[in-house]
């Protein structure tokens, strides 16, 4: 099967009164990578969900090699060789990669002949430019390997048009480069075409041939990447010339009082083995401490332990008092957080946006008097926060999963940063945000710092980290292996520590 040319024609999709797609047309040439850019909530995910048959467009249709198709279900998309790789992983962690691939087939026979399936799998993977271990449990793969395995799965299923919806958010920059490089070379060799949704201009520039910019559901700019400058793309995204990026507030001198103090922290991972080993660190008021590290080196467990989501041993004090994550302590000591994957880690899916915005203060005046909730006040607060943080949502009573990825993140920012923050734990806080929202998030984190808060920032993106923090700690294999102030930081040295090539 050769790689088809796929064309979307005049796609319109409404969610109630909300026009998510407005007459969008898109042409993905055979063997090309087509990037989709746009602000949070512009309609990128909606467009590709129409293309894989998860949503039905109200108007418009899809042409594959000039033939018109209507996709009623993901099965139809599968039959056309269209498949999607998500931001989060869909492989079953407790099975091996090979088992995952074999059972992912749409038409599974009642009896699986593992021998012949594995042979076929071997043939598919042998031709690939990259290697994924087949007989290893998925739970033991790194994020980059998992994402590669997702791509292998698509190829194994015979997909010819690969849709990647922000596939690199959970990857380190190096992993992202590798994965996208493979996609690009597969496109080059005519194995597939791809649609790449990304908020990162440099990824679009390096790995895509064409680009289309969506704004408020409409396609406002399309063309070859080479013909468009970053500024032109940014302008198309937000609809006005990009103003000079906001100047970060001048750095303030860290105060001397220690806010967060951790000593001999030990935390176990999901597999029961120690993930954080005897870790000690301190963060002072008015200081941002960054934790650099390749994902999977204990950062997730560290954050969860700090947020009270995971058992730990060792001591943790905030402003001198011991902290166990109770509601009283959180409010008194001002400990808040921006976890990664906010839809899963910081929002309750079955509650409304307004209720989610109230999770921090639902039991305090004015939202609650005595034990009686005041839902009027709760709605007022939600309205205020939504306006202030420009959260785009179908309505205050919408469920969180009706919000676009970036808007979920904004809602969490709104909730956490409007509290009296004295310690902020932020884990990759700009994942999935468009560049305007990124800048805004940085600004708000810096504001919190300049207001005297202590900030612990965990990020896999070294550039982001070095641009923001006052001090960098490098985490590797569950320990802090290196510490350096931001001014004296050398990226190559840090990189070596991150890779575990140098021990402390």
């Amino acid at each position: 099967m050769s790689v088809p040319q796929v064309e979307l024609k005049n796609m319109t999709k409404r969610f109630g009164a909300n026009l998510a797609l407005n007459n969008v047309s898109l042409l993905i040439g055979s063997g090309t990578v087509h990037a989709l850019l746009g602000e949070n909530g512009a309609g990128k995910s909606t467009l590709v969900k129409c293309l894989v048959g998860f949503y039905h467009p109200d108007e418009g249709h899809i042409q594959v090699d000039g033939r018109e198709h209507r996709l009623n279900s993901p099965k139809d998309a599968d039959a056309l060789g269209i498949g999607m790789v998500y931001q989060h992983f869909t492989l079953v962690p407790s099975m091996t990669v090979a088992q995952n691939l074999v059972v992912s087939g749409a038409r599974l026979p009642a009896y699986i002949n593992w021998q012949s399936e594995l042979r076929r799998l071997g043939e598919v993977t042998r031709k690939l430019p990259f290697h994924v271990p087949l007989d290893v449990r998925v739970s033991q793969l790194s994020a980059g390997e998992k994402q590669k395995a997702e791509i292998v799965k698509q190829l194994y299923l015979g997909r010819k048009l690969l849709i990647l919806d922000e596939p690199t958010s959970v990857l380190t920059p190096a992993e992202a480069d590798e994965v996208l490089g493979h996609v690009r070379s597969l496109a080059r060799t005519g194995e597939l075409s791809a649609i790449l949704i990304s908020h990162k201009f440099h990824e679009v520039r390096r790995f895509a041939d064409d680009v289309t910019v969506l704004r408020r559901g409409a396609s406002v700019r399309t063309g070859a990447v080479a013909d468009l400058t970053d500024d032109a793309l940014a302008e198309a995204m937000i609809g006005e010339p990009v103003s000079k990026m906001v100047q970060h507030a001048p750095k303030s001198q860290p105060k001397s009082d220690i806010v967060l103090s951790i000593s001999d922290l030990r935390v176990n991972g999901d597999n029961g083995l120690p993930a954080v080993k005897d870790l000690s660190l301190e963060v002072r008021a008015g200081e941002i401490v960054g934790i650099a590290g390749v994902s999977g080196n204990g950062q997730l467990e560290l954050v969860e332990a700090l947020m009270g989501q995971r058992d730990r041993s060792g001591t943790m004090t905030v402003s001198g008092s011991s902290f166990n994550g109770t509601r009283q302590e959180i409010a008194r000591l001002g400990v808040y957080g921006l976890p990664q994957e906010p839809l899963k880690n910081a929002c309750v899916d079955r509650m409304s946006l307004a209720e989610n915005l109230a999770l921090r203060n639902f039991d305090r005046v004015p939202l609650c008097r005595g034990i009686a909730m005041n839902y009027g006040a709760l709605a007022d607060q939600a309205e205020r926060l939504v306006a202030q943080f420009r959260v785009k949502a179908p309505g205050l009573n919408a469920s969180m999963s009706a919000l676009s990825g970036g808007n979920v993140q904004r809602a969490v920012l709104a909730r956490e940063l409007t509290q009296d923050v004295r310690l902020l734990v932020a884990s990759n806080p700009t994942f999935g945000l468009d560049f305007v929202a990124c800048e805004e998030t940085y600004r708000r984190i810096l504001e919190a710092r300049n207001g005297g808060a202590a900030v612990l920032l965990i990020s896999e993106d070294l550039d982001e980290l070095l641009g923001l923090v006052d001090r960098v700690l490098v985490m590797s294999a569950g320990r802090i292996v290196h510490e350096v102030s931001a001014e004296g930081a050398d990226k190559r040295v840090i990189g070596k520590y991150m890779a575990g090539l140098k021990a402390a």
Partner: protein
Amino acid sequence: MSSISGIESVPSKPLVTASQLSVALPVLAVLLASAIFAAFVALYGQNPATVFGLIVQGGFGSSFAWQDTLSRAAPLVLVGLAVAIPAQAGLVIIGGEGALVLGGLAGAVVTLPFAGAHALPMQLLMLLAGGLIGGLWFGLAGVLRQFRGVNETISSLLLSYIGIAVFHHLTEGMLRDPASLDKPSTHPIDPSYMLPTLPGVGVHAGLAVSLLLAIAAHVVLRYTRWGFALRVVGGSARVARMIGLAVNRWIIGASVVAGGMAGIAGAIEVAAVQGTANSSLIVGYGYSGILVAFLARHQPLAIVAVALLIGGMQASASLLQRRLGLPDATMLVFQGLIFICVLVADAIAQQLRETTRR
């Protein structure tokens, strides 16, 4: 597999709104079950119209029928709450029967040492004892889940069997009244301690207790921060921990309150109807409670309405038997049909939601 992989399940533009659906579905399910039940009785050579007529008559056709229905509805409301309250916290607890019989046993024996006391404190004591024991019983399921990772549905069901066995063991052994010859029972409670009849209604005061508890549950779940917190815990334990809610305490607390409801139901049966704890308590109220709660979508006020419906059906069973010679279990068949139809309707609604989402 790939089709169910990772898409959020969001109703985008449903044909009907979610709240309409939540009323329409149970109604449709009951109608469908009625149709199947009609075919079933027709197989028995009965005219379905006559049967349904008798059900209405036997359940709601006279003041006597209403009294019977109401006094059956009282425990049903409580065992329904025993399923619905933990459901808010994301738990599926179905062992109401065990908590009910143990609560009944506790209620039956707790006043025995006190002869000639005032009635009201004794009556409260019985309800309290029933609630406590029932709460402890469900609390075990909550503890096992939070600290040992045991699935609460299975543990509560198994605990229910254990509870019933303990009940038999005690009523036939240590706590048996030697005078109860053919039906092992505890010593009868002082007749003056029996729950009074509600003036003007002709039904025991247990009905008022269960209505009050249903209203209280409604208010607490809907209008207080406790209800809010419980929904957070039920929606995502991770997030609940992040915002500082003590998840273990909420889960176990909800289980204890729920078991308390079932235990109180047992105590009411003893203190208002039986006068002793004996095997007449074990008539499947706990299991009917599952049906009540599911049919009512775990909404406390709807539970009252559904309990009336199911109570009425159960009340009409004897009339069906007397007039048409239908076996006693006929009504159980009807109940079972309704339950299956509700579950199927849920599954279909889930699918509908997935299609309308597109």
